[in-house]
């Protein structure tokens, strides 16, 4: 994992000298005081947030996890590492960052064993967060693709579709979304064969991968239906779904998951230009569905729809989970506390909800179909991609639109708008990108591994 972990974490039974010791207390409990501090050692205590904030500027620290069960110690360390994330790549003067954490524990072996898996997820999460944090002039579909090639080191296959490939594959929706930008769209497929992959056998379900599909709008101006200027800068994060899928793949590879998985990232910049797509355009999507465009700022579902079709065609996956910062509606519905889960398969939904509870990346199931489908009836095409009315349940309508392109494959859609970044730091999160989805998808894969 060398080269992928931001913080080197190890278990110790005796804390080294002259290294600050942090002893976070659970919320609501009194600050514990232990005697036996050695001279010259700084003690940091208080809430997890206070500890993590203090540790963020210390290069090397000890985390006092004595008396905790190994799982609890691991969780505590995870929170400290997750919370200590800061992104300073574009600053000339950088603060010191936490790079080494010694976990003072009674059960070092069990800690180390359990930590490997957590470290993999954290590395994937950091990868995701960095992608989300990177501004759109530095992270275009092309440079996003270049950053993904690094995953080859881990045994992940990286397949890139450039404009000509996209044309041949018929991904006209994605091409339309990316058409006005000087930065051409891409589709990237990341494949992890799984450590139990048996090459040569074909057809059986055992080799069919789990598929993750991510919306990767490296910047979303809204297109001709341009967004208001205020807050537009946040649209550099409109590729957080794709980043989460990429991060999850990194996590699976780092922990040598037995589970075959693929991630398909639909990368484009929704720009304004003389050749931009327009409201009222009708686009023949990859599966032949004719779609009337109502609002060019509802571009994510168009890019994703084509990616879903291509993913089914190319990989015949056992299931698909897509992740996208898709709608403002889901923020109004569920706030910043939960992402929306739209799923037409109760088993998959159950696994995702459970994975969400386990990782703290909480989901809430939202409705699909019915009246939401009726809102997508078009006067001149097979479907329209959103409703022109105000005050619409756009999140459910968008999900229902995607459902059409998921076909019969068990499918779930995660609308992660609102949870992909935090404006302010809190107990759980640093300010900035959260990496939401990486640990969730990793935990989902783990559940399918356990199921055999």
């Amino acid at each position, binding site marked *: 994992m060398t080269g992928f972990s931001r913080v080197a974490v190890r278990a110790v039974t005796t804390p080294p000298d002259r290294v600050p010791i942090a002893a976070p207390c659970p919320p609501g409990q009194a600050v514990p005081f232990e005697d036996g501090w050695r001279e010259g050692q700084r003690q940091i205590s208080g809430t997890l947030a206070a500890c993590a904030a203090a540790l963020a500027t210390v290069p090397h620290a000890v985390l006092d996890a004595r008396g905790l069960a190994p799982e609890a110690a691991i969780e505590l360390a995870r929170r400290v590492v997750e919370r200590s994330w800061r992104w300073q790549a574009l600053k000339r003067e950088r603060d010191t960052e936490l790079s080494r954490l010694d976990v003072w524990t009674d059960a070092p072996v069990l800690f180390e064993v359990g930590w490997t898996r957590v470290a993999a997820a954290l590395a994937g999460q950091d990868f995701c967060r960095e992608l989300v944090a990177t501004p759109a002039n530095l992270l275009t579909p092309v440079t996003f693709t270049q950053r993904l090639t690094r995953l080859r080191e881990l045994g992940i296959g990286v397949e890139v579709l450039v404009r000509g490939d996209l044309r041949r594959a018929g991904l006209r929706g994605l091409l339309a979304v990316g058409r006005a930008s000087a930065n051409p769209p891409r589709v990237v497929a990341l494949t992890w064969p799984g450590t139990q992959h048996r090459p040569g056998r074909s057809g059986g379900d055992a080799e069919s991968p789990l598929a993750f599909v991510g919306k990767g709008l490296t910047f979303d101006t809204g297109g001709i239906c341009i967004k208001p200027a205020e807050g537009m800068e946040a649209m550099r994060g409109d590729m957080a779904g794709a980043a989460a899928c990429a991060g999850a793949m990194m996590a699976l590879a780092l922990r040598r998951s037995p589970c075959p998985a693929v991630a398909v990232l639909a990368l484009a910049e929704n720009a304004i230009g003389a050749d931009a797509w327009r409201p009222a355009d009708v686009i023949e999507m990859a599966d032949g569905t004719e779609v009337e465009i109502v609002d060019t700022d509802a571009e994510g579902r168009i890019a994703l729809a084509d990616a879903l079709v291509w993913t089914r065609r190319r990989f015949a996956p056992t299931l698909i989970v897509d992740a996208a910062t898709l709608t403002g509606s889901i923020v*109004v*519905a569920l706030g910043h506390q939960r992402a929306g889960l739209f799923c037409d398969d109760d088993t998959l939904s159950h696994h995702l909800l459970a994975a969400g509870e386990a990782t703290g990346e909480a989901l809430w199931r939202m409705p699909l179909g019915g*009246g*939401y489908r009726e809102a997508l009836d078009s006067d001149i095409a097979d479907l329209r991609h959103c409703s022109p009315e105000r005050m619409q349940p756009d999140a*459910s309508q968008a999900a229902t639109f995607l459902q059409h392109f998921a076909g019969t494959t068990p499918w779930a859609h995660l609308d992660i708008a609102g949870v992909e970044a935090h404006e302010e730091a809190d107990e759980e999160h640093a300010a900035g990108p959260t990496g939401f989805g990486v640990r969730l998808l990793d935990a989902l894969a783990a559940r399918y591994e356990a199921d055999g």
Partner: protein
Amino acid sequence: MPDFAFAKPALPKTGALALLIAEGEAPWPAADSASSGGIARALKAAEFTGKKGQSCTILAPAMSGATMSRIVAVGLGKASEITQLGAEEAGGTAAALLAREPHATVAAQGLPAGLAAAVATGMALRAWRFDRYRTTEKDSEKPRLAKVTVLTDDAAAARAAHAPMAAVADGVFLTRELVAEPPNVLNPAELAQRCRRLEALGVKVEIFGPKELKKLGFGAMLGVAQGSANEPRMVVMHWNGAGTRRGARKEAAAPLAFIGKGVTFDSGGISIKPAGGMEDMKWDMGGAGTVVGLMAALAGRKARVNAVGLVGLVENMPSGTAQRPSDVVKTASGQTVEVINTDAEGRLVLADVVWYCQHRFAPRFMIDLATLTGAIIIALGHDFAGVFSNDDALSKQLQEAGEATGEKLWRMPLGEAYDKQLKSDIADMKNVGGRPGGAITAAQFIQRFVNGKPWAHLDIAGTAWSSKDAACVPKGATAFGVRLLDRLVADHYEK
């Protein structure tokens, strides 16, 4: 509203005939043979198969021994899957097709008595119309359906099954009327007076005016009301259907409590709403309307349950006396609220009424209904109302009753993480938590006035009014919640 009768199957001589046909089944042989197979041929030509929602009209068919003006066929879906709701919807569809006919006969001869009664109920629900303010409409333009005879093998059983359903439908009509009434007519005092009508059904009605409310410490509700020339009211309706029967368990004696938001007009107050669409705010008393109709339904069918219905009635107006954003009010619970947005007034009304209800009645559960937030429309649209509850069992019962009555609920989350958004710098809480999760924070606000009692909050802002016709619900006021909650009571609380 048509009169309904039930009779043994016999082909009528005149009028219109509705044939309710299950999927793949042949039309009523008595009628089809009188038409020498013409009906079956017409249905075949129309590609009518009896699928749910299908319908077909045949005008002036040639029939031996009868002069029928019109035959309508309505699909029931698969014979083995016909539910009460399905039968009601088929009836509703038939009623819409028969609106021009003064007299109609409905052939439901294959259906059990209960479903035949449901057909009649569905017809009534669809045929309802609010005509009070149409003064120039010619009679020829009005719907004419006046008498309906439903043919069923066991007419007596159908009649018996129909009586309670008709009582519930009357409750629905009362709600629809209250919601449809304009706000210059239906102000809080007038709405309170209309609750008095329930006394005829055996409901005890108490009305509280501003003086009494002040004495009860309803600072939040009075703050909302203070901008309007129309005084607030709270109405408490008691239905003691379980009575104090000897042997009745104590648990069953504690009432079920239903609480409704009754803002007879919501201008938004000083945080005034945009003009476009403001006329819709006459139905911001939809929650209260539903509670009144529900109490009428329970009393009308003599439900064996004790229930109380409480409605908080105010008008929210901007004026020199109106409350301002940044005012702090003291609720009946003693908790203080910083009013950030005067257009988030419904929760202020509910806070006081909910608190009062649980302390006075110690109810088995409290269910409040309110056209509370625009956020719930952006979350769920018009397909579902949002249900927020601190009780999984109650929530599940509600969702099941919703499925059964077609008044569907989608559960939404609650939690500490959302509650935080209500933190105020100078009072115990703010009345709004911002745009993200707006319906959830509204529910959290109400929950702060619920002391751990089983409680559910139904945000019906997207479902109280409909802009298009549905099978059993003409466009306009839907009375969403009356049938749902009546069903909840019937299925779980009348044992």
